[in-house]
């Protein structure tokens, strides 16, 4: 749980209050200005009510240059960020033809498959020549190629489940699969910080939704006990099905879920476990098999394992792995399988090749090296940031490192300062995070070298000093300690 220091909370509220006041003033003056000019859409209700896009018009637009930055190269450890300029105070941004080479700390490129790879890329190009960019059809009609069939087997074997189904987009996987698995009369208990795709899927299913405190198995047990005792709302009949939805690594916190305890609670109360490994598959665990391998949980205990290929495999799409009967059922009913265009064949080939590299089936040990490097890099970077006094979230071994900013003005300040020193970071504010808890999210990759990380640390430290985000006292440096020791001696 993030506990915001008292003074910081007061100053953050004050900043937002000031921004809100100025925004309202500008809105009033715009209203007066608009009264004078005519509007040709008389009689229509405005498509965006004033208060709905207030945040976008008056707050987000002012710092719009920190988001949506276009890049013109592959998202490797170094990336070309296109420069943009604005003539109307950041309301619209125009691209120039110039770009700056920046250190990339924002892409989900955990294992370095985001750029040219000597094993994967030639095979992807072959597949593009043979099968073309798109199948132009859904999986059940004419969109299944031999590559798709091979991919599903490969994924099932890698994850450790009997069968898997692959869809074209990770977001759509959750939104389309959860309504198929559970409906009215069922109960979904979801972690409070679960991703929007899970929330969308749960809402679309029609089941009752209850939330438990983030990563707290004790609270999950309390909620389960209460809900089983109460039964369905109004009728109090027993629930038809209970599914507990958790994530492997929470993308905004960098925390790893307490899977062994959650699985034991679910076994006790006979609830199904749905694990979303979007960020953890391929990135953690000795052979990259995700949070189950890292924490020693048997994959047979997790009923439904979901993941995406965007992060560690350098591709796109999502998968669900489970028992053969479950996957067969999903293939008959899942809308993403029946109606959406199937995953692009070259993307599928990229995933197969990436899995082969990770497992060492390409004849080299690059996969094992990558996994070792990302663990080393993450732990080194996190330790150094904490020593400098930054408030860094997340557990050890997790490659996702959010640095807390809190104050809205620090969001653009940190981002622009880092860009000036050629380091590209991603800053996140409302609505992706709660209003007060804005952060900068660093994603470490296996392709970052030690020099890259040291440079990044220098730049972040400088930006941190300028913006005042070193909320914790810095650890005393080693030389000073030695000096003291000598003095005492």
């Amino acid at each position: 749980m993030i506990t915001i220091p008292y003074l910081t909370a007061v100053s953050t509220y004050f900043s937002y209050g000031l921004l809100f006041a100025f925004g309202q003033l500008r809105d009033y003056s715009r209203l007066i200005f608009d009264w004078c000019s005519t509007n040709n859409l008389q009689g229509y209700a405005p498509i965006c009510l004033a208060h709905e896009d207030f945040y976008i018009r008056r707050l987000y637009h002012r710092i719009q240059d920190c988001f949506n930055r276009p890049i013109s190269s592959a998202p490797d450890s170094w990336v070309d960020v296109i420069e943009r300029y604005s003539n109307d105070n950041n309301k619209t941004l125009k691209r120039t033809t110039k770009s700056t080479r920046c250190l990339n700390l924002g892409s989900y490129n955990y294992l370095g498959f985001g750029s040219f790879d000597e094993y994967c890329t030639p095979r992807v190009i072959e597949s593009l020549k043979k099968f073309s960019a798109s199948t132009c059809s859904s999986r059940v009609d004419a969109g299944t190629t031999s590559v798709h069939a091979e991919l599903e087997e490969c994924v099932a074997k890698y994850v450790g489940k009997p069968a898997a189904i692959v869809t074209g987009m990770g977001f759509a996987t959750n939104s389309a699969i959860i309504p198929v698995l559970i409906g009215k009369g069922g109960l979904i208990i979801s972690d409070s910080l679960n991703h929007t795709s899970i929330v969308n899927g749960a809402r679309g299913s029609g089941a009752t939704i209850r939330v438990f405190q983030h990563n707290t198995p004790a609270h999950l047990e309390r909620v389960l006990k209460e809900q089983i005792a109460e039964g369905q709302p109004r009728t109090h009949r027993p629930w038809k099905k209970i599914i507990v939805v958790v994530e492997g690594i929470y993308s905004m916190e960098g925390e790893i879920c307490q899977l062994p305890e959650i699985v034991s609670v679910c076994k006790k109360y006979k609830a199904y476990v749905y694990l979303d490994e979007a960020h953890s598959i391929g990135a953690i665990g000795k052979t990259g098999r995700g949070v189950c391998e890292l924490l020693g949980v048997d994959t047979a205990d997790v009923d439904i394992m979901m993941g995406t290929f965007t992060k560690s495999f350098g591709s796109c799409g999502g998968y669900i792995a489970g028992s053969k009967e479950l996957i067969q059922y999903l293939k008959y009913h899942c809308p993403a399988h029946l109606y959406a265009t199937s995953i692009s064949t070259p993307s599928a080939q990229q995933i197969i090749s990436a899995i082969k590299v990770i497992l060492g089936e390409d004849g080299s040990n690059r996969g094992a090296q990558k996994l070792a490097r990302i663990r080393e890099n993450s732990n080194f970077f996190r330790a150094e940031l904490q020593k400098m006094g930054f408030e860094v979230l997340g557990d050890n071994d997790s490659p996702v490192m959010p640095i807390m900013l809190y104050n809205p003005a620090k969001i653009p300040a940190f981002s622009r300062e880092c860009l000036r020193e050629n380091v590209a970071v991603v800053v996140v504010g409302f609505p992706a995070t709660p209003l007060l808890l804005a952060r900068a999210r660093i994603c470490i990759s296996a392709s970052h070298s030690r020099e890259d990380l040291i440079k990044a640390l220098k730049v972040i430290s400088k930006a941190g000093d300028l913006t005042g985000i070193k909320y914790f006292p810095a650890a005393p440096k080693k030389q000073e300690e030695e000096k003291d020791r000598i003095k005492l001696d």
Partner: protein
Amino acid sequence: MLRQLELSCSVSTMFSTIPCFCKRGDIIVADEGVHWGIQNGLQLSRRTIVYFKHNDMDSLRSTLEKIMTKNKRSKNLRRYIVAEAVYQNSGQIAPLDEIVKLKEKYRFRVILDESNSLGVLGRSGRGLSEHHGVPIEKIDVVTAAMGHALATEGGFCTGNARIIDYQRLSSSGYVFSASLPPYLASAAITAIDVIDQNPELLVKMKQNIALLWKGLSDIKGMSLASNHESPIVFLKLEKSSGSTKEDLLLLEKMADRALKEDSLLVVSSKKSFLDKCRLLVGIKLFVSAGHSDTDLIKASESLKRLASELLLSPNLFFLFITSYVFFFNLLSYFIILDDHVA
């Protein structure tokens, strides 16, 4: 000024767009034959949804009348009409000029899904608005999947600057999802360039559709249920058995035989239990500009042959089952009678 927003999955385009613009109290009037992506978006928006009869303008008019008489006072109530340009479930084309007239009369906004009409309808392939001669500014939001005519993946949403800017933070499929792989975006750009520079592709495709229609106009046991200009040629059964499952089994059998005997790949309608669309099932044929005349003539001959073999002959299987059940019952009755007598 029109702007555009791209998403990485075709089916998520609509279900990310619709919930952005619909809040408590808003009313959405949608066609009953819309595909699952739109249905999911409507469900996620959690607003009042009124369905009108599939592609029936009189039904739409009466629905709009009813809504307007009920809600005369609410000025800030947003009202939308959601329709598809070419319906994926039936191949019908929406009469956009009439929809726009109704929209202007009753002050509704139109959200149009042009997945199957982009690159197909209109003189230069710009979609339904060009086809009907309606200025594109009259349609408030246009979404489309790029997995059809543009042969890539993903989808996009266009509208005026304010609508698109609003979606950059509130469209869940855009904010909380990874972007499209760059090679697919390049493929889409190139596809649009090719369509622009080669209008003869559109002419060829329209000729192909007409040829297929001519070939299938006298097919026995099935009838053409789509619009004669739609690239989705939809064949429905003339005599439905009453059960969707039975119909689907028969259509699947026909598609299987077409593949095995004539190397012709056709697809039958597929339905998930989540799909609330109640339109008839049938066989869908997707026409392409790449098909040659001989291909299409061969296809129509094959389908005509299979239809007459499978659909016209008395359904022996059912005859067998009903007679078996009858004789079994008769036999068991006599056995019981025997037992009683004994």
